[in-house]
């Protein structure tokens, strides 16, 4: 029975007793209670129900362990029940019987009834009469609410109805609280599995975004990831596990770990995704779509394997965009034994590879292809800088609509090789090769000869190696590299935030002579904010 059906205040023939009961009904259904947390709400309701029914004890027990056990959750007059962690199997004793039959159960006199309570507290406290009703959510029993009397009492139909009304209110609150808690846990898990910070790679600009669905309980299994594979190679992942909530977020976490492990151990995205599909088959878990791509940081060759996921978008430097739809296989967790293939594309300077989940392009009542063509338009006109690009794409595609599904988006952009090049990189030896290949590329793009390229490659690499050596200490140091071309003379400055130290040891200190050998001009400017090394050379064909 719902509160609305009981609420018949307009009736002129309401008996006095009924009026009191209607007030009682309002006392347990008033909206102010919704602001209490579950424990306070249960305490308040138990107070009110004992008061209303003039009972001495009241308790809420909840079903646990997949429906096999009842555990005490809140009690009044029987507080020890909760403190002692009282449990009983569904089907046994008094509360167990209520849960099992999903019907109200009345015991007029404990000891004379065929139903024997198993809780020793009833005897200890001297409870003589009991009334219990099930807590039901969509026809499923989630627990039991019971009241007791220390004096002999015959609970009547009205008592049963009123208690059931309170039980419905309690069941609703418990269910809502459970969903909220689960949604919050799923959202927290989800967020903890996203990269906190994307790696800083010379020559690449990256941005990643995750937007949860508007409804917290709909948080699901979208994720993105960037994996440093070592040896000048980077891995990119975007994925979407079917479904929402805890189960989806948990499986997402498993897939994320599995793909990270396979990526470090397996050559090539196709093989990685094939293994991921096998892993998923063996788990007999839910369906998921995923893209795994690698990018060679020296050649900018991208290899992409796609399992049922929306097409990656390649946005050219001039803004024109195209979907990479050459290859692809089914989602993982659908067809067993599937082998995946790779699409290979070499990125030019200033190009962006955009990976996203379907939440970005799916709209209720619209074709997926509609969303795709909107994305093409929006991506073409969006700002160049990856963070701003992602922001513009998301805000334009989610305009005038509630975000029904979560959205993940990852943009990877190669830098432009114009007359001015500016990059920041971590002070780590692993970055040396990437930085010298980047500068080689830049010299080549600005009409330098092979000799010019080689000369800048070694001079810049030496200067960066010096900066890395200076950047000792616990902080994560960043090196700033700037290349400019003016009247045929290329100048590269390398700025660190460390202190200049004189080269040590007999075999050290060869970096500067090597720089001088290959450059027209070399200057080292130590400063309080860091050291700046400036390297200049007239490009042999550039003048």
């Amino acid at each position, binding site marked *: 029975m719902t509160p609305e059906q009981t609420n018949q205040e307009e009736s002129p023939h309401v008996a006095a007793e009924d009026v009191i009961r209607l007030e009682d009904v309002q006392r347990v259904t008033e909206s102010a209670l919704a602001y209490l947390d579950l424990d306070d709400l249960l305490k308040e309701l138990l107070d009110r129900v004992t008061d209303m029914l003039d009972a001495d004890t009241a308790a809420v027990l909840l079903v646990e362990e997949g429906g096999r056990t009842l555990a005490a959750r809140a009690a009044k007059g029987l507080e020890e029940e909760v403190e002692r962690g009282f449990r009983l199997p569904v089907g046994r004793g008094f509360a167990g019987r209520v849960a099992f039959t999903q019907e109200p159960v009345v015991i007029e006199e404990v000891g004379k009834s065929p139903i024997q309570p198993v809780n020793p507290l009833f005897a200890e406290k001297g409870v003589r009469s009991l009334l219990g009703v099930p807590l039901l959510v969509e026809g499923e029993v989630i627990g039991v609410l019971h009241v007791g009397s220390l004096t002999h009492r015959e609970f009547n139909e009205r008592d049963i109805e009123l208690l059931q009304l309170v039980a419905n209110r309690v069941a609703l609150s418990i269910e809502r609280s459970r969903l909220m808690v689960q949604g919050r846990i799923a959202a927290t898990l989800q967020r903890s599995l996203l990269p906190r910070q994307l790696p800083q790679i010379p020559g690449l600009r990256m941005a990643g975004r995750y937007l949860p669905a508007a409804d917290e309980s709909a948080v699901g299994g979208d994720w993105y990831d960037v994996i440093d*594979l*070592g*040896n*000048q*190679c980077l891995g990119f992942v975007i994925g979407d596990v079917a479904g929402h909530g805890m189960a989806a977020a948990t499986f997402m976490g498993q897939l994320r770990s599995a793909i990270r492990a396979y990526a470090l151990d397996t*050559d*090539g995205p196709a093989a990685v995704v094939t293994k991921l599909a096998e892993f998923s088959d063996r788990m007999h878990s839910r369906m998921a779509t995923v893209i795994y791509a*690698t990018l060679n940081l020296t050649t900018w060759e991208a*290899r992409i394997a796609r399992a049922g996921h929306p097409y990656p978008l390649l946005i050219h430097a001039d803004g024109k965009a195209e979907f990479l739809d050459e290859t692809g296989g089914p989602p993982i967790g659908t067809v067993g034994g599937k082998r995946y293939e790779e699409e290979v594309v070499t990125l030019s300077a200033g190009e962006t590879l955009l990976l996203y989940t379907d939440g970005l392009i799916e709209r209720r009542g619209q074709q997926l292809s509609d969303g795709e063509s909107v994305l093409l338009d929006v991506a073409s006109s969006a700002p160049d800088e990856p963070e701003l690009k992602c922001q513009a794409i998301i805000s334009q595609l989610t305009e005038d609509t509630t975000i029904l599904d979560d959205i993940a988006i990852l943009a990877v952009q190669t830098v432009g090789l114009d007359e001015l090049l500016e990059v920041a990189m971590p002070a780590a*030896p*692993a970055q*040396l*090769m990437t930085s*010298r290949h980047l500068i080689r590329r830049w010299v080549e793009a600005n009409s330098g000869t092979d000799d010019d390229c*080689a000369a800048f*490659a*070694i001079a810049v*690499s*030496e200067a960066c*190696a010096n900066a*890395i050596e200076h950047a000792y200490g616990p902080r994560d140091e960043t090196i700033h590299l700037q290349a400019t071309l003016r009247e045929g003379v290329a100048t590269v400055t390398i700025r660190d935030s460390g202190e200049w130290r004189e080269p040590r040891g007999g*075999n*050290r200190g*060869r*970096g500067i*002579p*090597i720089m001088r*050998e*290959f450059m027209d001009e070399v200057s080292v400017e130590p400063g309080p904010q860091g050291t700046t090394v400036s390297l200049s050379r007239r490009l042999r064909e550039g003048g």
Partner: protein
Amino acid sequence: MRPELARLYLESQGDIELARVAGEVDASNVDALSERLLEAVSNQARALVLDLRETSYIDSSGISLIFDAAARLRNRRQELRLVVTPRSFVGEVLAAVSMDQSVAIDPALDDALRAVGSGDPAS
């Protein structure tokens, strides 16, 4: 898919150890390379021939490795010879630090193998 920056191939020819380095040598891989290189030279070996013809890049850390190796081998009365293609990038870097004044450099592998033990300071 995930290429090593440099690969090291080792081979024994009688009492001469032959080490061929292909790829790029910089501060990120020089320590690992140095370790494997010195392990490869047994006490019985007369000389180490370091073939750098397939080395596409070397920087000052690689140069230091060569100087260090030369000094150690000299202490053990063993010889170090380099094989470097003339006018190659690596050749230019070695010239920039006057490597030829400390270590013998040959343009071809046969020259190096023939010259071991002759005391020739290389061409």
